């Protein structure tokens, strides 16, 4: 009797969580539509729909299909990728402040991207498809470097030291990026500056194609591993006891997180804080169980970036880079978490 009651209760809360996730999907669709309407040239919702179904003018088609749509799709995808990456990092390191941007993983990827762009400035299809691999390597190297530097014999890795090392490595890589690229070509300084500000610079369909396979492969893989993440979060001993090969799973999941961060950096630039805010908001909404937390994080992340990008494009006459908008929201949130954390 009692157990069936509990089960019902459980089902009810699960239904609630599914509902919340459904609501987030609806919100993303709404944001998507609003974002398609806004920009330098305004299109009414009706015009957008007409154009989508092939009845718009040539000009409207170019605006929508060549400029706006790829950019919006990219913002949703990187938002999802960064937030899920942050969710994994927070779970694995058991550290509420972890985020691929704050930890310096993004900057490693960025250095690779910037170097590559400076050496091979022509943007053809092959080189764009190659970018995410390169930035994955950069992100991975940065992750190894930060892990190694934060590791102390006998103490392991303390959460604060990990973040601190990440912040410092990110600062160092940004400096190195400026110095190096200036030496290569002075023109590339502009690119580095745009990159550092977190502007979604790759906004055509080629970039969408470059990013899509990474998100499409890694997200389902991670969602399948939700239970493993739940167990890892309980602590190494507990996880071992429950029959999870902790070290191996941790490395695989970490690689997946680095891959997601790297791929999104390859097309978006240095957007930080998404991986921090996304999972935190999601946790407030659906709780800590990864089966719900991961998809909810992905959705909040996507919503956040699409909103930031729309705000950056619409509220002010001049376009403000997305990364700046996210940082203005994200940095105070980080401070709030820092003050609250034990």
């Amino acid at each position, binding site marked *: 009797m009692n157990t069936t009651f509990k089960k019902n209760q459980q089902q009810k809360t699960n239904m609630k969580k599914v509902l919340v996730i459904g609501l987030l999907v609806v919100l993303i669709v709404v944001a998507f539509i609003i974002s398609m309407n806004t920009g330098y040239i305004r299109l009414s919702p009706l015009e957008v729909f007409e154009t989508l179904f092939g009845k718009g003018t040539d000009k409207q088609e170019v605006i929508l299909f060549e400029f706006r749509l790829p950019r919006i799709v990219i913002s949703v995808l990187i938002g999802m990728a960064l937030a899920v990456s942050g969710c994994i990092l927070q779970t694995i390191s058991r550290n509420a*402040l972890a985020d691929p941007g704050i930890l310096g993983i993004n900057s490693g990827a960025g250095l690779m991207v910037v170097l590559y762009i400076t050496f091979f400035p022509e943007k053809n299809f092959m080189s764009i498809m190659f970018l995410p691999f390169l930035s994955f390597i950069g992100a991975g190297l940065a992750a190894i470097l930060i892990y190694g*530097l934060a590791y*102390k014999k006998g103490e392991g890795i303390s959460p*604060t*030291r990990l*973040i*601190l*090392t990440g*912040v*410092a*490595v990110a*600062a*160092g890589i*940004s*400096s*190195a990026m*400026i*110095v190096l690229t*200036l*030496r290569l070509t*002075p023109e590339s300084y502009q690119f580095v*500056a745009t990159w550092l*500000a977190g502007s979604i610079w790759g906004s055509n369909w080629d970039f969408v194609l470059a990013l899509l396979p990474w998100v499409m492969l890694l997200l389902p893989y991670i969602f399948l591993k939700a239970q493993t993440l739940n167990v890892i979060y309980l602590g190494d001993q507990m996880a071992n006891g429950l029959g999870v090969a902790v070290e191996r799973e941790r490395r695989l999941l970490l690689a997946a997180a680095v891959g997601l961060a790297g791929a999104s950096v390859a097309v978006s630039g240095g957007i*930080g804080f998404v991986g921090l805010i996304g999972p935190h908001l999601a946790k407030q909404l659906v709780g800590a169980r990864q089966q719900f937390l991961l998809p909810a994080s992905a959705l909040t992340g996507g919503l956040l970036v699409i909103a930031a990008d729309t705000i950056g494009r619409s509220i*002010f*006459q*001049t*376009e*403000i*880079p997305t*990364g*700046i*908008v996210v*940082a*203005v929201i994200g*940095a*105070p949130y*980080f*401070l709030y978490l*820092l*003050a*609250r*954390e*034990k």
Partner: protein
Amino acid sequence: MSTSETYEEKIEMEKISRPMVGLYLFIGGIIALILSIMASISLGAADIDFKTVWNSIFHYNEDVTAHQVIQEVRLPRVLGAAVVGSCFAVSGAVMQGMTRNPLADSGLLGLNAGAGFVLALCFAFLPGLSYSFIILFSFLGATIGAGLVFGVGSLTRNGLTPMRLVLAGAAVSSLFIALSEGIAIYFNVSQDLAFWYAGGVSGAKWYHLKIITPIAVVALASAWIISRSITMISLGEEVAVGLGQRTKVVKMVGMMIVLVLAGTAVSVVGGVGFVGLIIPHITRAIVGHDYRWIIPNSMVYGGLLLVLADLAARTLNAPYETPIGALIGVIGVPFFLYIARKGGKEL
């Protein structure tokens, strides 16, 4: 920490204070500073020999182009670098001593970013503001930055650990930097603010120097005057009180000095970090824990570091300038990681 232990520590520290070494280091530093200033003046787009440099300063002749170049472009720039370097280094030294935080630096704790943010506001809303007011606002910005960082730091449950402060500093900095960039783009003042992101002394002119030098001299001298008290506070609050120090007053004065120094420096050179971290640590390792020697040596070597960094910034990739903040960041970050790892036990 019991009192007797700290007294023993104090005796220990007296032992490892090395005044003679400090004196030699100071004299050596002054000589090195003068030489590097001369070298920096003579090297550049057109190399000018030492004799002309000497003449241009002591026997100025309007008709010689080289003299004009030196007087109008190179001299203010080099002197500006020296003054600014001293300011950053001493502000770092005072902060480290007073907060007993090995990771204290005006860049790391959000002072520079705060000043930069207020400067962005000035350029956007009060264009054509006179330079003395810009310094005042820069000082105000540094105060806001420091206030926020220490405020958030003290809100944290386990209090103000050095690492937490640096994390708060990083977040406050990224907030202010994002806001300033937004303002710069929106109000189209990026050009005026470009110096700030990258950091550089290329904009230093005589009229800047005329205003910042007296401020810097007064602040540096005051730092040296309270250096004995800073030494005692650096040994621990109880020790300082036990030795008859009015720690509250000293801390207030010290914080004012730090803010004035950082604000002034940022108004000239922009957000250059790590000088206040690197220099005091190195001088402390050499001269021991007596701030009467740490402060003057930090002053000299901070100036030296910035003069050399500026020389490198001009020559590495001539005719383009490498941002000096990025250059020092490349050295500063490994140094920071090293200090953070050690946990600053020697402080």
